[in-house]
């Protein structure tokens, strides 16, 4: 199971109170985890990445194991600790704006 921590506003939108756990087939990548996340919670489509191009929204970041994966290609495999569920993938709303 892949654990994903969402920012507060997206937890509200998805109507979840805590981190979510997702089944992802094969070796999980950023893209496959987001695919699974959006399939489970359709209200999140378009809020993390573009509907069609899947380009990450500018003020959203992806962190895991104290590393920033935001600029990695979508098919980059996630770290082993994320795959085993020892560490979560963090979807972060950047500190910006008011």
């Amino acid at each position, binding site marked *: 199971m892949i654990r994903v921590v969402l*920012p507060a*506003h*997206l937890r509200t*939108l998805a109507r979840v109170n805590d981190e979510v756990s997702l089944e992802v087939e094969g070796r999980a990548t950023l893209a496959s985890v987001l695919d699974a996340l959006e399939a489970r919670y359709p*209200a999140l*489509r*378009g*809020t*993390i990445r573009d*509907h*069609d191009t899947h380009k990450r*929204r500018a*003020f*959203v970041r992806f962190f895991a194991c104290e590393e920033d994966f935001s600029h990695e290609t979508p098919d980059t495999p996630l770290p082993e600790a994320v795959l085993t569920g020892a560490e979560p993938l963090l979807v972060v*709303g*950047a500190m*910006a*704006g008011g």
Partner: protein
Amino acid sequence: MSGVRVLVGTRKGAFVLTSDGRRDAWNVSGPHFAGWEIYHLKGSSADPNRIYASQSSGWFGQVMQRSNDGGATWEPVGNKFTYDGVPGTHQWYDGTPHPWEFKRVWHLEPSLNDPDTVYAGVEDAALFRSTDGAQTWHELPGLRGHGSGSRWQPGAGGLCLHTIVLDPANPKRMFIAISAAGAFRTDDGGHTWRAINRGLRSAGIPDPDAEVGHCVHRIAMHPSRPSVLFMQKHWDVMRTDDAGESWREVSGNLPTDFGFAIDVHAHEPETIFVVPIKSDSEHFPPDGKLRVFRSRTGGDDWEALTSGLPQRDCYVNVLRNAMAVDRLDPCGVYFGTTGGQVYVSPNGGDQWQAIVRDLPPVLSVEVQSL
């Protein structure tokens, strides 16, 4: 009708204000969608329990919400707005071509007779329609396909389609307005459009009476006279009596003819309301006095309405979507400010009181008469 429901969109959430027909005691519900910008929410006249809301944020983009119970509960619906075909370009601030990019929904206009049909005016300017209760959206591309589309240029607030007015007597006709392109009309249900800006004069563009390029802020109509439209332009208050074929200025004795909001009395088609704002760089009322101006003659002759409104040290703005009227008798008039106040006059503007004073900056106000 025995009561009203006021739908307020703010920079940090939506609020629903309800009262009985006396409109002197209010229940406040919210914030709904706390922390998100709510550019607009509006109820269906065919089913008042059906309300649509535009929810957006700089972080997470556009979300659309729908309520089927008058705003008590909400469900997210479709938020995919894809321009039809190859989007092409409009002009950027520096005059260079700029690709059309969806940013947000500014205005929602539910159909007058089908609760599942709703129009959305968006930035970058385009008109979308949903016929399945906002689950899916499709552009009406004839508007952007108007020959002038590549010459449209954004105003300071962006290239936004902010006003949609449906003709209750002719389901094929509607009016829209874009900053800073101007007003447009369709007579065939949105397939083709034409600019209806003859008579507008804008000193801030190279050709003051050009076909397009005018910064129209808001258009209002009385449903009994759909060919008569009133417009608050960037500068100038205007009216047309022939569905936009020609406009004439009716600013008359207003202290300033700059402003954003304009609306028409529910029972008196020649009675209109504006909130004069000092200038496009100051964006607050003249002399620190918050005054609604009312014309009972369809323009030209205006009176200041001040009772209950702050008459000193007031420097708020009233944005284009932030004024509305109810359909009770006497007609109630409402507006919200960037200072977070929502005011009501339950008697056509004669006296005002604040329903709430400390909301986030108000972006939109709509009223349902129940």
